[in-house]
């Protein structure tokens, strides 16, 4: 099927499959694909140890383009298949690729439980705030009032914040990045890849056909500095063209402040993705206009994963009881002989 070149050091190219990429020209998915391939190459793990699992949607075509094992499952169910794979063989490096509809509409429950159970999956959520593949209906992340094919009078659904949802589910790695910023995206994916546990990465992605410019403000040169808050470990929350604005805590409520004589950097909230508890991650995840949109790693935390624990129980049972003996189990309870 695929080349057998299993070179000790791999490059992005090794992760390019023979399948022609079929997204619309200009689609944000291309750049995500490239960074994912690069991240995998950088991990120092042989290609055959990767499995990329997806649901259905434009985004979910990604497995075809990555030269690893791949599974293009059904709509919303990628986390379930990925869970089966990971639990079956924890030695595999399992990625989930999904869209905002796939993961949060039909697949919301599986996403919830994969996050809660801390299954060691790397989840890339391509959030374009629209159903791309079905040609443009609003999604759970579309804004209220959005006019689409299925909402000619404007959507009546309040949008979900994927990362607030992830915090509510107790995820152990929560991050956001931009498809239009390959460098940042590459860094975030690299960190996600290193995380042992469930890693949930929201990637803001532009759908040129059905929701073009949804993130225009966040990506355009002029507006970006005002609209993006780039999180840096150990650094205060500063943003703005001249980095003269910051986020300060007022009780539990964040507020935007101008740095200057009255307000020093030391008054600002300092970014620490490793804080105990999820309150801080939740606060970041809830930030929306007029606040700048945080990107980077919101939260990370080490905890045993479901797959580890399942296998630990097996090991423990084997240690305690010895390798299972079928004949012994067959004969458990009352037995009798007929001669």
């Amino acid at each position: 099927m695929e080349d057998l070149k299993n070179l000790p050091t791999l490059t992005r190219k090794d992760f390019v499959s023979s399948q022609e990429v079929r997204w619309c020209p200009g689609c944000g998915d291309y750049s995500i694909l490239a960074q994912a391939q690069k991240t995998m190459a950088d991990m120092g793990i042989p290609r055959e140890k990767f499995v990329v699992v997806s649901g259905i949607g434009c985004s979910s075509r990604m497995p075809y383009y990555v030269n690893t094992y791949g599974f293009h499952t059904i709509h919303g169910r990628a986390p379930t298949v990925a869970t089966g794979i990971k639990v079956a063989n924890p030695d595999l490096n399992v990625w989930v690729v999904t869209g905002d509809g796939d993961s949060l509409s039909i697949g919301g429950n599986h996403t919830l439980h994969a996050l809660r159970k801390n299954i060691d999956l790397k989840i890339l959520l391509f959030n374009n705030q629209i159903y791309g593949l079905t040609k443009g209906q609003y999604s759970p992340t579309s804004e209220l009032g959005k006019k689409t094919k299925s909402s000619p009078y404007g959507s009546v659904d309040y949008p979900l914040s994927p990362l607030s949802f992830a915090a509510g589910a107790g995820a152990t790695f929560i991050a956001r990045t931009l498809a239009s910023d390959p460098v940042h995206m590459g860094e975030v994916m690299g960190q996600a890849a290193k995380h042992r546990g469930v890693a949930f990465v929201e990637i803001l992605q532009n759908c040129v056909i059905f929701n073009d410019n949804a993130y225009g403000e966040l990506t355009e040169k002029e507006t970006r500095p005002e609209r993006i808050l780039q999180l840096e470990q150990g650094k205060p929350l500063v943003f703005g063209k001249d980095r003269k604005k910051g986020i300060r805590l007022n009780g539990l409520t964040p507020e935007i402040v101008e740095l200057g004589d009255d307000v020093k950097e030391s008054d600002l909230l300092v970014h620490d993705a490793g804080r105990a508890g999820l309150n801080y991650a939740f606060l970041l995840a809830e930030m929306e206009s007029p606040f700048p949109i945080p990107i980077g790693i919101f939260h990370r935390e080490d905890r045993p994963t479901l797959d580890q624990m399942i296998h630990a129980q097996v090991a423990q049972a084997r240690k305690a009881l010895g390798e299972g003996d079928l004949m012994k189990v067959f004969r458990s309870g009352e037995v009798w002989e007929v001669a």
Partner: protein
Amino acid sequence: MKKDIEELQDVVIRFAGDSGDGMQLTGTQFTKTTAVLGNDIATLPDYPSEIRAPQGSLAGVSAFQINFSSRDIRTPGDDPNVLVAMNPAALKTSLKDLVEGGILVINEDAFNAQNLAKAGYATNPLEDSALSRYLVYRIPITTMTVSALKDSGISKKEMDRSRNFFALGLMFWLFQRPMDITVEWIRKKFSKDKNIAEANVLALTAGYNYGENAEVIKKHYRIAPAKNVPGTYRNITGNEAAALGFLTAAKLANTPLFYGSYPITPASDILHELSKHKNFGVLTLQAEDEIAAMGATIGASFAGLMALTGTSGPGLSLKSEAMGLAVMTELPMVIANVQRGGPSTGLPTKTEQSDLLQAMYGRHSECPLAVVAPATSADCFQMAVEAFRIAVKFMTPVIYLSDGYLANGTEPWRIPEIDSLPKIEVKHPTDPASFKPYARDEKTLSRPWAIPGTPGLEHRIGGLEKLNIQGTVSHDPANHDVMMHLRAEKIERIADHIPLQEVFGKPEGKVLVVGWGGTYGAITSAVEELQKEYSVSSIHIRYLNPFPKNLGEILSKFETIIVPELNLGQLAHLLRAKYLVEAISFPKVQGQPFKIREIIDGIKKIMETKGGSSWKI
């Protein structure tokens, strides 16, 4: 007092009482001892769907029926010869089934005004002539238990609770069974509270001694051991047998078992059983729902495990879409479906055989897979192994269709020697040069089972139509045609690898009774009886898709085909469509298994309308 002993061939006892009366436990203990004595047995637990239905109410009656015999038996018995009724509600619901002249053991203490009212008795049946057709033993079981335990050091309430052991002890005496197995079990079970343990033993003994001493009881009974096939036996429920079968299949394939499931009655016990056996390397996953369980099972199969999921009707409905993915990706796995009364939530704790057509057609588009169904509780073991054998050999999902009756009922199971069972051959390709994801085995049409982690075999699968051989996505019209036919043909070819259908009785004749699943015992017993007079044979189909190769041939050898089913004619439908035979449906949909007599009567009636009086032999 020395009492008479009467020799009997078989006896059906029903223990019936309030949910809180411990009837399931009582029945199970009687069963165990009886099994060890070497009688053939079959049991049927029947309990309410409420966890604790209102005490004393009709809805709260819990019953356990056991049929035991010195000959080969196949069902828990149509009607009890002995009824133990611990309260008025139990009497009310079960009395209609007791055979005329049968023994009726009654806990007199429970027949107070309140309980009588709850059971809907206007007058006390003990005090009118309602019970005159039975051999009635009115015993103040509660009082006698309490008085026996007065020095046991336990509370009054706890004493009360021991009354089922008194009843059990009495039955042990009545049917000449030893108490030691139960005594041992009690001491183990209540090892944390010695007082309770000894009180229960005391209650048991008190019941036994009551039988021995009470004037009213004139005789007891002996049932000789059955002449079973030599071997080591244990008593087993269908769900236990299935769980052990799946465990065995994994062992025979030398591959760990994965079980992904969401609890649902009556399938949950498979999850409970398998999750005990972690030292076999079994990986159990309690998923968030049935869809997730199915998805995880597909994932585990892709990753190379013996992948299993289990559920009951509503869960099978939910799995429909993902089962389509399993068919499209041609991965091996088993979907165990323990049928219950439907539609919708239906009668969740009752049995039915009504998911057959769903197993066949319950997925969008043409989505064929294999279907097998065990015939008895013990057979659940073998069909579980068979399901995996087929799944792995043909790279296909296999539905294992059990039902509530088989799952909860018990019968003796001859313990197999694991080494005597044929291995399940598992092959994972490793050679990149020759690997094509949808290449096909010439004989079975199965594709290679290449698993992640294998260098050089990286490939992608999924739910979109696949290009044959290559396995890439294809929208090519001709390829779709090829694949649709290949998927169908692959399942058809399984017929070359399963046993031919056997016939019970003569291979040709007037009437053929066709069954499947848990009705085996009732149908076979009925046909055996009918064969004394009529030209009747029967077949019991355990391989439902594909059917055994000789099925059409067999059907063609009979004039009339009758299909008793616990549904409205689903197997009959399949036989009619496939073989164009006038299969006559004999349905029962009452959430209850067939009685032997019902089948005998039903067949006779159909024979009559068909002019079958001339079919006597």
